[in-house]
Each structure stands twice: as C-alpha cells, then as structure tokens.
C-alpha cells in the first residue's frame, strides 16, 4: 500500500497547542506512525510551536506531509531568528532558560534541520515511516 505523497496538511500556530497536538496526532496515525513514535513527534512539534510563540515572532504555521519514506513536519515562524547553529548537540544545563525544546527534538526525531531564508526560519522534523 502506498499513500499519496503530495497531500499536505497545514495548521496555524496559535495559543491552542492542545488542538495542534490533537490534529498532529491524528495525522501521524493516518500516516502510519504508531505508539511511542507518535508521542515523540507530538512532543517535538509542541516544543517547536512553543519556540515560535516565544521567540519566533509569535505566529507561524505547521505543515505535514509524507515524502514516501518519512513523515515530514515543517514548523515555520515569522521572525527568522532560528539558524542551523541553534540545533543542539548537547543537553542544556539544568539552569538554562532556553534550548530544552531543540534538545528534546534532536533526541526524539529521526532528523532535525533548520532552513533560514527571507525573514523566516523553517524547522523540519522527520520521522521514518514503517515499511509497508
């Protein structure tokens, strides 16, 4: 079974993070992720959305699609301050006030990448889909 890869879902990032988590959870399940892998993605996207609300200009959007091997979730902000250098390779110290979200994403997702251009930053989270 091979599902269409072109279909994209878009959600705005608002203060209603619970709704975003619910929509993403459903989408991830439909895409073929299960159990803990869905949780990992939902936790990660929630952290990314918090960063957009806090540091990313306060608004943005989440897009999700299936590229044939992975479920890709892109989180775009309107501040464009996030750069690839911000990706975490070490856990923030307990007293740190920032950086936990990016660390969590790096630990829970299969791939994390940042693309910064023309006043926007796009964070891409990828989860490998189970083979059919």
């Amino acid at each position: 079974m091979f599902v269409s890869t072109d279909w994209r879902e878009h959600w705005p990032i608002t203060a209603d993070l619970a709704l975003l988590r619910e929509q993403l959870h459903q989408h991830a399940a439909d895409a073929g992720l299960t159990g803990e892998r869905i949780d990992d993605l939902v936790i990660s996207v929630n952290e990314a959305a918090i960063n957009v609300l806090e540091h990313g200009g306060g608004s943005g959007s989440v897009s999700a699609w299936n590229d044939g091997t992975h479920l890709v979730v892109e989180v775009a902000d309107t501040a464009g301050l996030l750069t690839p250098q911000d990706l975490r390779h070490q856990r923030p110290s307990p007293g740190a006030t920032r950086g936990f979200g990016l660390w969590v994403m790096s630990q829970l997702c299969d791939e994390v990448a940042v693309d910064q251009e023309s006043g926007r930053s796009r964070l891409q989270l990828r989860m490998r889909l189970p083979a059919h």
Partner: protein
Amino acid sequence: MTAAVSLATYPDDTLPQTLILALEGQLDYTNAEQLRERAVHLLADDHRSLILDLSELTFCDSTGIRILLALRTLITARGGSISVAGLGPRLLKIFQVTGLVQFFAVQPTRADAVALLRAAPSADQSPSAG
C-alpha cells in the same frame, strides 16, 4: 479546546507538613504559569514536603517541567523535599530527555510517596504528632 490542567489536594492527617497535589489533564506552555500560581497559593508556610501525583497528567512539555522545577526550588529553599509519583511512559520520557528527572525523587505511586514520607524520621513527624 485549549489545554486544561486541574489540581486536587489530598490532605493527610498523619503528614501535616506535607502538601499532596494531584495534577490532571495536560500541562503545557499555555497553562503552566497559571498552575504554578495555583500551587504556590496552596503551599502553606509550614509545608515542608510536596508530593505531586502526576498519574492523571496525560501530557507535560518542557515548560511544564520547568514549572515543577520552580516548585521544587520553593520547597527546597525552606529545607523541604519534593517527590513526583505516577509518571506514565510519556511523562517519564520528557523528564528523562530534558535531564530534569534527576531533581525529583520519583515514586511509582502517590501511596508509595506517602508511605516513604511516613517512614522517614523527618521534620514532618512534627512535635504535634507526639
């Protein structure tokens, strides 16, 4: 439908200096600060121990854990202790990944946390208990 988290207290006569709180729902960026304020409000001056029952908390993000860490700072500043109980796999994961699990005494259930405190020869078994 915004995230909702509710707070219940479970007073225990044998532990007068312990505040036992049970959290239910989803603790996230949108309600964490509000929860902190409610918990701080419930914390009386003579409370020396805090038990957080998280068994009915279905979601907690990094903001939520940092709020729990703030409560820990409050209680340890007065020489007290904090324990968390009933962490499901989803919560345990975020506690572990953030590395913040090390700051909490983790107990399987609220009853375990209570039993441990009763058994401990701590300030909680205050003179009034004798």
